[in-house]
């Protein structure tokens, strides 16, 4: 039953999620830090933009990504002219879609963790002569560690389960862009219930385990 297309989907899903995670974690920490620590005009708008993917249908994200990265897209056009390469319908596009959809979880969780830190600790670091950078690296982020970890787990789980935006930008090309969620959809469509069962069960365990871990660490972060 574990045929090669199934194994391919599992491997691809993890590959896509890992790449999305590698980018979402540093970007998410950076954005969360700015939103938690800085006061500036338009902060609420930036916050809203980074939260929006949580509530938008993934198909809307997919739509924007096509507008941006498609062969005639705002960025995609130049990319194609410069390198003769288009990202659409490759696994890279799936990674970009997963990144966009999962980033808010990283930002939100990390921001909440940073906001919980006793501001006196950050100010104390400044009065000891340490720059904002040193303070961020040695005080702020280490103290937000558990929240960051919880965010990273949630982000990975969300990236792993991405379906809608992925379908729109990467398609559902067997052996090329069919991630597990797409494989489940395909399996159901074509009546391969056994395959759908295995994959659904696998994903329930992975996602459930991730949530459990995130709660465990995130809960402690609040303490």
């Amino acid at each position: 039953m574990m045929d090669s297309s199934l194994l391919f989907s599992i491997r691809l899903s993890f590959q896509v999620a890992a790449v999305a995670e590698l980018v979402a974690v540093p970007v998410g920490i950076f954005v969360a830090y700015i939103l938690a620590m800085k006061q500036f005009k338009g902060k609420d708008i930036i916050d809203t933009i980074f939260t929006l993917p949580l509530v938008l249908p993934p198909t809307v994200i997919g739509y924007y990504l096509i507008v941006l990265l498609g062969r005639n897209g705002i960025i995609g056009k130049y990319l194609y002219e410069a390198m003769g390469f288009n990202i659409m319908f490759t696994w890279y596009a799936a990674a970009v879609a997963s990144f966009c959809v999962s980033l808010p979880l990283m930002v939100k969780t990390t921001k909440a963790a940073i906001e919980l830190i006793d501001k006196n600790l950050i100010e104390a670091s400044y009065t000891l002569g340490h720059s904002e950078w040193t303070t961020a690296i040695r005080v702020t982020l280490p103290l937000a560690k558990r929240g960051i970890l919880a965010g990273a787990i949630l982000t990975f789980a969300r990236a792993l389960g991405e379906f809608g935006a992925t379908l729109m930008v990467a398609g559902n090309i067997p052996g090329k862009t069919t991630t597990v969620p797409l494989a489940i959809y395909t399996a159901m469509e074509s009546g391969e219930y056994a395959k759908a069962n295995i994959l659904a069960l696998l994903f329930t365990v992975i996602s459930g385990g991730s949530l459990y871990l995130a709660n465990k660490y995130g809960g402690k972060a609040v303490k």
Partner: protein
Amino acid sequence: MSLAIKLFKNLPGFSLNVEWQADEEFVVLFGPSGAGKSTTLKLIAGLIEPDEGFVKLNGDVLYDSQRKINVPPQKRPFGYVFQDSTLFPHMTVKGNIAYGGKHIDKKSLEQRVRQMIKDFHLEGLEDKFPNEISGGQKRRVALAMALMREPKALLLDEPLTALDIQIKIEVMELLKEIKEKFLIPIILVTHDILEAFSLAEKMIIYRNGRILQMGTPAEILNNPINEDVERLLYAKDIFQELYILSGASTPKMLRQLRRT
């Protein structure tokens, strides 16, 4: 060494307007909670920007609203101990103290940390985390950390609050030692009249963001400028407690006192 300040700051609910000077002496900012004492420290350290005024240390201008000078907190040579003696919870005692030693090269840093641990009687606690040590020990670590850079003035925000009387007396003794050893202005914030009288060489009485009276404890006690000051001074039955405190400068004497 001398610290001179003139600060005006509008804050939600009240405004702060104070001017005073401190030489190499123990200056206590005394007053009820919400009088602007802690805010004064934050303004001096540059953690909050005043609306108007100046902060000068030995003639060096750290802040001047007219000349548009505002040295960032990192570049101001103060040692600051925050309320509740904030320590970095993810660093050991040794790590906390070492974190106070910016600009010290690695080799001398280790030596200096060791010296501080000895001077502040923290031997054996080097590798403990802040949640594993007592309140009095925390205060000592916070002071050691704040003194690592050899600051030119020390700002202490309620460093004695919530300590048992015995520990409080120990920390007070330590503060007096620090003053003699470092010869710098020490500004201490408290709302406890006993702490104020036990430590102050100069007392500055705050209320509602203004200074009610300034002077030595004796001057203030003998000659309160108005009823407001009197009321603040006698909010507690201080004489009895003051007698206990001044007569018992060491824990040993306190024990003797208790026996009688």
